[in-house]
């Protein structure tokens, strides 16, 4: 199906969500609802809230709804813990037809009672799903009563799936987090060299890498939101003197709130790729206005860059000139990935996000070369079309994008929750380079385009060359 020039898109409304740099007037529609009937790669409000809160390791995460929402989110996020593992279980009120008709509040109250008795958690999150929003269970009231009864915090998360998209779920999670961390009896005393790290969920232990960098600078990681966080550590959040924000999409709201209410300033950072990691460390060091910290940052950057230079260089030799497509959740990650690919000599020719924001797309657009296609809320047909049109060798995405790339004979790197090693920091940059190499350079692609053994000359071929 040929629809280049975007005016020939099968659904005219989609044209506004797609932009080719240099060929069109700048401007891209985003932060809007998906068009019904498009195979969107997006998820729902509950999903957004669960992604953000689930890494809190000692909480009971109770999903109030029919079984599915809890089943699909059972331990698939890959967030690591240094201690408690309660968060890796799947708790659901498993609503049945009777509950839907007569209301699920009693069952919810029973579920909280039974879980608290069994696990003695310091904290319970109760997630609202679509159906709870429709039948109108009073989550707030049930949680309040349960909290009083058990003497622990029971926090409702207003995450009915239909009430917006994933970004609305981030907001709901931030609202729940704020209820948890808002200092009740006045502000705690600030710890002068203490940093909160927002928007990292400790996939493959990434929080620990950033934590160790901060330590080497002479700073303390107060608490990470929410990777490897516990009830106790979150309670001290307001004592930090700086918030650094990795995943701006999910945590911007909370950072603003903490600045306004706790007087904690924040910096947007990124630990993806050498350039952004070094830049972020310098800006953090500069914030403290202490020459020694800046000195340590420079030493760290020099030391760590040197440590991975060999890997990056050898990968770059194999990869230079390749073209990549990027389709990730948020805009910030996409921006970092473009820079990171540059470090490997790879051009990004297609870049899209599920929930990128206007400012992020503006930065993206600045960053890429003319001819690069930028798209919001893309569907697989569009990704396919533009990857083929632009001759991409590689796609970076999540679980639903992987088989699409493979079927096209393209290499693939997971930069979502299925990653198996950390992609943050200097070590992460080396891991990323190795992973890109391992997929782009795999001999397996050879067989996609080779003739069937024994086929007559000019006859059957496994697949036409792309």
């Amino acid at each position, binding site marked *: 199906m040929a629809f280049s020039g975007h005016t020939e898109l099968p659904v005219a409304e989609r044209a506004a969500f797609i932009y080719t740099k240099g060929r069109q007037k700048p401007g891209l529609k985003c932060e809007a609802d998906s068009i019904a009937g498009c195979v*969107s790669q997006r998820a729902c409000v509950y999903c957004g809230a669960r992604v953000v809160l689930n890494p809190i390791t000692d909480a009971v995460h109770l999903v109030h709804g029919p079984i599915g929402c809890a089943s699909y989110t059972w331990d698939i996020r890959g967030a690591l813990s240094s201690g408690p593992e309660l968060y890796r279980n799947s708790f659901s009120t498993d609503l049945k037809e009777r509950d839907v008709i007569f209301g699920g509040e009693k069952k919810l109250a029973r579920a909280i009672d039974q879980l608290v008795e069994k696990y003695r958690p310091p904290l319970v999150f109760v997630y609202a799903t679509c159906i709870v929003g429709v039948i109108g269970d009073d989550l707030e009231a049930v949680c309040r009563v349960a909290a009083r009864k058990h003497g622990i915090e029971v926090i409702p998360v207003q995450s009915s799936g239909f009430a917006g998209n994933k970004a609305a779920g981030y907001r709901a999670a931030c609202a729940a987090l704020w209820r948890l961390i808002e200092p009740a009896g006045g502000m705690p005393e600030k710890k002068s060299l203490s940093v909160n790290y927002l928007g990292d969920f400790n996939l493959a232990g990434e929080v620990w890498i950033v934590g160790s960098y901060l330590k080497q600078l002479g700073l303390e990681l107060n608490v990470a939101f929410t990777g490897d966080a516990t009830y106790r550590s979150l309670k001290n959040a307001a004592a930090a003197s700086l918030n650094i924000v990795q995943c701006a999409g999910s945590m911007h709201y909370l950072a603003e709130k903490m600045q306004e209410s706790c007087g904690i300033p924040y910096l947007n950072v990124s630990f993806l790729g050498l350039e952004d990691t070094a830049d972020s460390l310098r800006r953090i060091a500069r914030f403290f206005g202490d020459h020694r910290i800046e000195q340590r940052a420079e030493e760290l950057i020099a030391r760590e860059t040197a440590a991975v230079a060999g890997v990056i260089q050898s990968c770059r030799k194999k990869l230079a000139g390749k073209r990549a497509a990027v389709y990730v959740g948020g805009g910030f990650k996409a921006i970092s990935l473009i820079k990171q690919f540059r470090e490997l000599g790879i051009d990004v020719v297609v870049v899209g996000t599920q929930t990128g924001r206007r400012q992020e797309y503006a930065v993206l657009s600045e960053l890429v070369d003319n001819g690069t296609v930028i798209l919001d809320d893309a569907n697989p047909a569009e990704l396919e079309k533009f990857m083929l049109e632009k001759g991409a060798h590689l796609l970076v995405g999540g679980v639903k994008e992987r088989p699409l790339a493979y079927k096209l004979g393209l290499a693939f790197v997971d930069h979502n929750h299925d990653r198996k090693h950390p992609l943050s920091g200097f070590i992460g940059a080396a891991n990323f380079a190795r992973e890109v190499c391992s997929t782009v350079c795999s001999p397996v692609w050879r067989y996609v385009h080779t003739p069937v053994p024994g086929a007559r000359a000019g006859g059957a071929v496994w697949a036409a060359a792309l």
Partner: protein
Amino acid sequence: MLDCTPANIVQRSGGAINPAKTCQPIGAMYAALGIHRCLPHSHGSQGCCAYHRSHLTRHFREPVLAASSSFTEGASIFGGAANLKTAIKNVFTIYNPDIIAIHTTCLSETIGDDLPTIIKGAEIPPGKLVIHANTPSYQGSHITGFSNMTRAMVSYLAEATAAQKKEQVNIIPGFVNPADMREIKRLTGLMGIRSIMFPDTAGVLDAPMTGKFEMYPAGGAKVADIRDAGNSRLTIALGSYAASDPAHHLERKCRVRALTLKTPIGIKATDDFLLALRGHFACAVPAELEEERGQLVDIMIDTHHHFFGKKVAIFGDPDIVLATTEFLLDLGMRPVHVLTGTPGGDFESAIAALLREAGVEANVRAGGDLFLLHQWIKNQPVDLLIGNTYGKYIARAEDIPFVRLGFPILDRGLHSYLPVVGYRGAMRLLEMMGNALLDRADRDAADEDLELVM
């Protein structure tokens, strides 16, 4: 991770801990993918569709395409009719399927969207089809959803048009992997009988690499064949939970006799399947299948020492668990904990009957969760655990050899390419179970006890 599970079992009434099931729509989506050139459509908010696609993608490692009505607050208050009509129009325009199979979610069910009426009012291009199934997530499980969507295929598509029933058999395979569907078709083909399988995900979710992205791979039951199912002489439903209801619906609608058998896992259930074919059609079991069966019996004799008396816990989807339990008993094993997450039906009594005959006492539960299974195992340890991916937590916590069987399997590959049904499938199960037990024996053996020959 499961170190908090207490051994002391008390009644729970507040929901599930570590579920052994999931919700209807994913089963409906899987069934819909078993129609050639079909795009499944989820009538609800985006999350359900995203989760189902991710989950199926993780299990099959194949692209899973499905559209969503993308409900927001407006649709939830004013109804989803406008969204669905737009969606139908867009899906045909963008993706050009032959047929859209719509399933509902808990949201659209609860607000009461009337799908038949909405579909009637939708713009459907000539020659194209839209079918639907009601799949409220608060009833049954993914197995119910699979059954409901298969029933919708019968309701919308099957027709009795021929004056006389044709010498062909309909096979409703139940919620099994594409490889199992292929194997069942192979067995039927070897018996010399023309068959119509629906749904049929072979060639859709195990499609070969072509270097192209095929939105609609070559496999799947053709709409024309599903129509023709109304002219068949017999429908064999493999599994009382996932397949029986659509078969009986077809019997009522088109007077095609329905016969429900177990999923053909293990020697007896495979025998029953072939005997049913032989009993209803002019055909004989070919030498090739006799040879396969003979090999299987030979292997069972060669390895029976490894299995006899071993205690097993098994969980998963009811049709799979029921048939596998029968096979375990045929091996002289003792399935002492048998659990499915899918509620209702005759699971408990059917398992109890099998166990009674074999003289095995066991815990049996339909509608249970893995927390309960874990508690059972704590109270009565087993030598082997069989179930889907989620069993790995229990296997680790209790240090039990573990065989992955069923849906979903998210942490291993190839299961969707290698059958567990038929005599060949039974051989594969023997290999998996035998190796799990023997690997464990090797691991635990003291240096002086380690044997080369086992």
